[in-house]
């Protein structure tokens, strides 16, 4: 079986609010699939319908070939879930939590190496309530992996973590995929989606506005690169405008920004400056990001 998840025409309404408005997509086995979008875009509702924790109002969901509503218990034997909002009893110890969750499944892995791998071995006798945010999150990942699942759901994995812990978490996600598992994650950090995901669905107001690999999404946007540098004296901007691919040159004090497209843009700009004998410093290029894609598609700024 090639696909892990098939969603067709999924729709979910809470009272007056349409949380998910008819979305369809497929997740392939072995990939890291991401859903990105602002808070309230419908990501968590979608993920919970796929896990079988919520009943869709319309549409069909097939997860690992099962109907999440009808075969919920069977499905949960085979998936690992990290929920956006959940907790454990305050006074449960780390080892008790993994040991107990292991007993909930027909099949489970040895929890000792698992805690080791997640850097929790030294915290095994610590109460849940006394763990830091990052440690709690790693414990929840341990619980999501305790049954050696085929498919792992990570909902807003890094929200509330500091940048260092976030990077450590990214490595964990790559490790999970290395083991041949499929990963479905949601995030509202565009950078996170860009770094982690093989394919990304951009959602806004309960709809998918784009779905592809981050590179293709960025390329399809046809967005301009920017070459930014500083100069100390006046120079002939016309020489820069003449470089192939350049669309616009902006000067703001010492700071010059050249907009343009094409792989030779940077070389062309540097060449033109050298030829014109213009001394420059601090030259760097800025690539368009998923953030720009989101902005272009929805007209909204997203901020983590």
């Amino acid at each position: 079986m090639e696909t892990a998840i098939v969603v067709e025409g999924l729709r979910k309404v809470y009272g007056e609010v349409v949380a998910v408005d008819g979305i369809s997509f497929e997740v392939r086995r072995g990939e890291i699939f991401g859903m990105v979008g602002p808070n309230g875009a419908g990501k968590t509702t979608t993920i919970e319908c796929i896990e079988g924790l919520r009943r869709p109002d319309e549409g069909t969901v097939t997860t690992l070939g099962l109907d999440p509503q009808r075969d919920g218990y069977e499905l949960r034997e085979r998936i690992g879930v990290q929920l956006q909002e959940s907790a454990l009893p305050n006074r449960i110890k780390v080892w008790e939590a993994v040991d107990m969750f292991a007993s909930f499944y027909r099949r489970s892995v040895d929890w000792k190496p698992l805690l080791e791998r997640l850097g929790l071995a030294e915290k095994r006798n610590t109460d849940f309530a006394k763990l830091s945010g990052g440690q709690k999150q790693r414990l929840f990942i341990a619980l999501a992996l305790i049954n050696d699942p085929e498919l792992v759901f990570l909902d807003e994995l890094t929200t509330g973590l500091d940048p260092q812990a976030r990077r450590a978490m990214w490595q964990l996600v790559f490790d999970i995929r290395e083991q041949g598992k499929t990963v479905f994650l949601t995030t509202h950090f565009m950078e996170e989606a860009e770094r982690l995901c093989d394919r990304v669905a951009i959602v806004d107001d309960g709809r998918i506005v784009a779905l592809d690999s981050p590179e293709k999404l960025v390329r399809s946007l046809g967005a301009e690169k920017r070459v930014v540098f500083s100069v100390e004296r006046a120079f002939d901007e016309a020489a820069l405008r003449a470089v192939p691919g350049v669309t616009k040159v902006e000067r703001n004090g010492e700071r010059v920004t050249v907009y343009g497209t094409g792989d030779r843009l940077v070389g062309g700009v540097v060449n033109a400056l050298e030829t014109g004998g213009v001394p420059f410093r601090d030259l760097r290029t800025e690539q368009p990001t998923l953030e720009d894609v989101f902005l272009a598609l929805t007209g909204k700024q997203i901020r983590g």
Partner: protein
Amino acid sequence: MRGLRKLTWVEAKLFLREPAAAFFTLLFPLVMLFIFGSIYGNEPTDYFDGHGAVDVSVPAYIAMIIATVGLLSITINIAVYRENGVLRRYRATPLRPQAILAASVLVNLVMTFLGGLLLILAARAVYGLHFEGNAVGVLLAFLLSALSFFALGFVIASVSPTARVAQVLGMVLFYPMLFLSGATIPWQELPEWLRRFSEFLPLTHVVTLLQGLWFGEPFGDHLKEVAVLLGVLVVGVLITVETFRWE
């Protein structure tokens, strides 16, 4: 099954790690016993129909433990689990909801029983507690009383929108029952109109049933109490099944 066993074991440890629950279930009844035992002793008196104060108090305090666990421990525990997202996390596993409820009932039943047992052992050792009933009968009455109060606790937890509301509701039911059911203050002390009011409190029936059986009265004399408690149990279970929420 393995999941239920582990969950029950972990919940038992968690119960004992929670100072308030452990204290009020296991130690507080002993404190009551020793305070009032040292005041009134356990000499048979006409006031208690020829029984000693301790003999009368022990089944009444067992009723108090049942109410504490049912209305306070279970209610708060389930409501907090729901509010914090513990139940949500359990739900994302193959664990059946029945297992969660069963573990909770089992652990709380054992703790209530332990609280009663400690009380009985202490009362026997220190005050020469008298028991004139049939142990199996008293055990059955204990079981019925505990289960019906646990059901009441689950109902409060299920219908309360937040853990805080559940806690307040539990206390609102608990305190009048504690003082007016005969569990702490002997019913002989209550004026006639209060006694009539206390007929409406389920705990009054637990006290009457346990005290009656304790002193050797047959079950047949207490069909009313049994019926009331069975009713509370059945209605409580039905309401819980209808209103139980994971989040």
